[in-house]
């Protein structure tokens, strides 16, 4: 009996906990709190936070190679399958209509990717700080946070720096949730009241054929110039083609509902399994959080500045605010642009105009990911 009691006691959490594990369980709880109470990207942060708690339970080894989270991680993140399937679902949910109605605005989605590459430089520069040591692969994986696109960040992170994946995913989704707080001051700082008041003309109608051709054209351009981006871009295009073809609605509906939901649950838990204490509780994580914020801010600023350039070139027919939506963070960033526009002029509805740069930002960061994977990977 005594022996059994001792065996049972030696198997309790109380007996086995390390400080790091306790701290990470608190972090997991904090993510869940932010997700539920503050509405921070709950679809991802609840599974990630819960996965983080499960991964830090002593004895149970749920994140180990034979545990549920470890098995899911191996099957879906290590292989890249989960983020690619999410991207397919995103494609099936995305309406490229606004982008097709006024394609020139895609340039805003290109400019905003400056946040990614600036941050890459910043991450390497952080090596000058003692205690922080980022390889080029680490830096690239961190920089992609500036893409403001969850599945892209997870895909690149899992390929280039799996050890940092937990922190990268948490940073990416947290900042995406924080877009309504991070972007407005930058938007107000960089634009004048007059610029923000700019009204934009209604978008033209886009034909069904243009919508069907777009994913194929996008894939074609990508495979000619940057094949390393085709896993991501390809699945986005595939999902979008399922939707726009109009002949496989049952596949499109499944891709954007049940399938993406199932994969989101698995992906979130798997990513959470990388919130292990020894990897997360380090100076690197602080660096990642800081660099992620920089990446978002610089990306927003670059989009805005390109917006101001277009405002001039087009004879004041483009509201520079929609440049901030170029970072992606769909559709939050477009909503923020709309909101700030309305503050300057209550008749100024920018939402649909901002959706073009917004989805262009998704393409832009997938292309940026392709560059990073081709050269650094």
């Amino acid at each position, binding site marked *: 009996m005594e022996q059994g009691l001792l065996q049972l006691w030696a198997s309790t959490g109380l007996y086995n906990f390390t400080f790091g594990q306790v701290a990470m369980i608190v972090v997991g709880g904090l993510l869940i709190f932010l997700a539920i109470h503050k509405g921070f990207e709950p679809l991802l942060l609840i599974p990630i936070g819960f996965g983080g708690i499960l991964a830090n339970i002593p004895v149970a080894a749920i994140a180990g190679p034979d545990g549920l989270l470890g098995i899911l991680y191996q099957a879906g993140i290590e292989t890249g399958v989960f983020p690619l399937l999410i991207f397919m679902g995103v494609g099936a949910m995305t309406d490229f*209509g606004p982008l*097709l109605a006024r*394609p*020139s605005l*895609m*340039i805003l*989605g*290109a400019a905003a*990717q*400056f946040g*990614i*590459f*600036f941050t*890459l*430089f910043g*991450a*390497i*520069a952080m*090596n*000058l700080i003692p205690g922080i040591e980022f390889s*080029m692969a680490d*830096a*690239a994986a961190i920089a992609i946070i500036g893409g403001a696109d969850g599945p892209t960040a997870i895909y690149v992170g899992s390929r280039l720096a799996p050890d940092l994946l937990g922190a990268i995913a948490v940073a990416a989704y947290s900042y995406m949730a924080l877009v309504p707080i991070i972007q407005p001051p930058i938007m107000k700082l960089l634009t004048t009241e007059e610029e923000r008041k700019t009204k934009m003309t209604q978008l033209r*109608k*886009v*034909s*069904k*054929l*243009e919508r069907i*051709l*777009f994913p194929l*054209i*996008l894939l074609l*351009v*990508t495979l000619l*110039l*940057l094949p390393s981006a085709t896993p991501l871009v390809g699945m986005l295009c595939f999902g979008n083609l399922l939707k726009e073809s109009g002949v496989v609605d049952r596949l499109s509906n499944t891709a954007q509902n049940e399938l993406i939901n199932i994969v989101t649950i698995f992906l979130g838990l798997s990513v959470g399994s990388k919130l292990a204490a020894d990897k997360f509780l380090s100076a690197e994580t602080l660096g990642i959080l800081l660099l992620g914020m920089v990446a978002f801010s610089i990306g927003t600023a670059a989009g805005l500045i390109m917006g101001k350039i277009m405002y001039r070139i087009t004879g004041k027919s483009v509201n520079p605010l929609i440049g901030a939506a170029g970072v992606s963070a769909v559709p939050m960033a477009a909503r923020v642009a709309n909101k700030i526009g309305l503050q300057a002029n209550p008749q100024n509805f920018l939402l649909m105009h901002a959706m073009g740069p917004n989805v*262009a930002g998704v*393409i*832009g960061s997938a*292309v*940026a990911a*392709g*560059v*990073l994977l081709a*050269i*650094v990977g």
Partner: protein
Amino acid sequence: MEIEQLLMQSLQLLGLGMGAVFIILVLLIVIISIVSKIVPEEVTPPPGMIQTSVDNNHIVAISAALHQYRKNR
């Protein structure tokens, strides 16, 4: 690798990366613009059509019945 080399390389990546992003997106702009001119305009506006069909109670009723039928088949 030394830090200067890494910094140099990351500056290169900045140039290459932004270059690639701009080239691809500008190419897309060009192609899409050409395509939009080639593609014939539709007579009936499709997104509007869909909007209307939502309000159209008849169609909704029929599709609900179909849906039921498929479920119960």
